[in-house]
């Protein structure tokens, strides 16, 4: 399955709506991992966590083909210089839903896995910042992710990368990863 189709189906499985580019990237990342499709999605290390140009390009393509509507929301955020901080929200429109529905028939197994994974992810709804931290920790775990880790291990790793995130945030991210079944934690 190519990245474009996976991104389209992911958005469809997520109810057709997603708020913010960062959340979109991280959601697709986790859905890729949970459905076994991650290695085809082009994710690579970035200073702010896993990021895929291919996923970004797919979102862009969905827009120009007229399948998703993108709106700019400021959510009331103003930066230190008085400029509004924009957040991009994505909405699979009516035409996009028809096209995506056709794809669910083309890829029935992936679609089933995606729906299951979305249900697990949504049950543990967290905001995009926590989602980003979780994605970053999971990505950096690399080969170690199949082994047992402890919260202390994760804290050490976060510090070694120089991230300014609190112990609470690490615990929350670890808990999230544990709940969705992506890491095994001893504590």
């Amino acid at each position, binding site marked *: 399955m190519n990245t474009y189709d996976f991104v389209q189906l992911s958005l469809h499985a997520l109810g057709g709506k997603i708020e913010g580019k960062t959340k979109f990237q991280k959601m697709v990342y986790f859905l890729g991992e949970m459905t076994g499709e991650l290695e085809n999605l082009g994710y690579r290390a970035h200073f702010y966590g896993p990021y895929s140009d291919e996923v970004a390009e797919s979102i862009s393509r969905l827009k120009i*083909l*007229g399948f998703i509507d993108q709106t700019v929301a400021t959510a009331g955020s103003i930066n230190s210089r008085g400029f509004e901080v924009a957040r991009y929200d994505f909405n699979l429109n009516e035409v996009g839903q028809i096209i995506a529905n056709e794809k669910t028939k083309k890829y029935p197994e992936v679609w089933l896995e995606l729906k299951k994974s979305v249900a697990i992810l949504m049950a543990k709804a967290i905001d995009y910042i926590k989602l980003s931290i979780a994605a970053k920790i999971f990505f950096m775990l690399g080969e170690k992710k199949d082994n047992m880790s402890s919260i202390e291990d994760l804290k050490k790793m976060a510090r070694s990368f120089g991230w300014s995130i609190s112990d609470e945030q690490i615990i929350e991210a670890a808990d999230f990863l544990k709940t969705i079944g992506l890491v095994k934690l001893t504590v």
Partner: protein
Amino acid sequence: MPFQIRDPVHNFIELREKERELVNTLAFQRLRGIRQLAMAYLVYPGALHTRFEHSLGVKHVAGLMAENLELSYDDKATIRYAALLHDIGHGPFSHVSENALARYADPTSLKANQKKEKIHEIITILIIQNNLQIIEILGQRTCDKIASLLSEWHGEPVLRSLVSGPLDADKQDYLLRDSLFCGVKYGIFDLHQLHRSLIAYGLENNRDLMIKEDGIHAVEQFVLAKYYLTTNVYLHKVRLITDQMIIRAIILGIEKDNNDKLRKLYSFNNTTDYVEEFIKWDDARFLQTFGLEDNSGKCQMLLERLVHRNLLKRVFTAKPTDFVPEIRELLMKLTEIGSKYIRSRIESEIAAKVAEVIKSDIDADFVILNTFTIDSVKEISENDESSILVAKYPVPVPFENTSNLFASINEAFKEVFVEIYAPVNWQTKSERKQICETLKEPIKNIIEKFCRENVGGEK
């Protein structure tokens, strides 16, 4: 005193001894015959500059950037060599050749790590690692390091970013150079201010090229320069047509005229023998051989049209959203090699329609369907590489999130176009308007009809 060359963009470019020797190799001198912007001179008459002076310029810019950063003497030298040689594998008409190389290369000859690279980039690496003149000057070890830097670099990221990345020396030179030679002001930015803004930032031995927090405005200017030059020069209507005519001439020469010499030129097989032959070609030899000597073929006819500036005309332009939803995804793939049969059928039927409207026979092989994208200015800041990063503690942040100007630009302004070029002539604007309006609906219907028949699987 180092050898100096007068350059219209950077004034004096200094060459150290080995750099001068590299410039004097046959492989490098060939770049004098490869125009930077293919046949863009048919719309911008001044655009006659070549890969030769661009490569000198990239070496100069990379050298300036490397001096500003804390790099070792050896690393600085490697950067300059890599910058000098980065385009040495370009074929006739620069990037236009890439399309034909990708089409006719032997895919089984590509190694796993080469599958995502452009063929001219693979040729560049093969030249650097195997050309005897270059090896004699630099030594095999340095050649291998340069090759690694230009392909799969595993060393410190900042070195790679100087030669390939959103702020690389290549872009900095081509924006200024192409602007100057095209006679436009779109690509102008403050090179030296930009360099003052750069920093090698990150953990030890893992630093990357970033901008300082107070360097945002210099980068804004640089990114906007790239956007304006892309939309006004690189994607100029006539430039798109001339590029497509060269590509079509090559395809017709190989597939319709059965020209073995042409097929051999573009049948890349990953061997040094192939590369040795490939680097004997430049724009002039190509036009002489396939445009003048090989008369009577379709390739020759199309090249002759180019030489005499008897260009195809754009008779149709539309966006994907002008078409019914179910064919839009296929529309985006029509110019891919895998869609060549459906594309050919569409072009044939459109040719018949155009002939009916202009009341004159036209060759269906000279009707070209093209699609292209104009990225939004925000996407242009990212290019196809990663984002430009601002060196902030503790974690760098993307430039587009830090710049007030870019944060306020709606990134949705990206456009894709589907166009048809055909061998028609019109004398006046009103005649053009009449022909294009008459053809608009019929062409749209033809494209939709064939795409509908093929949705879900190319036939």
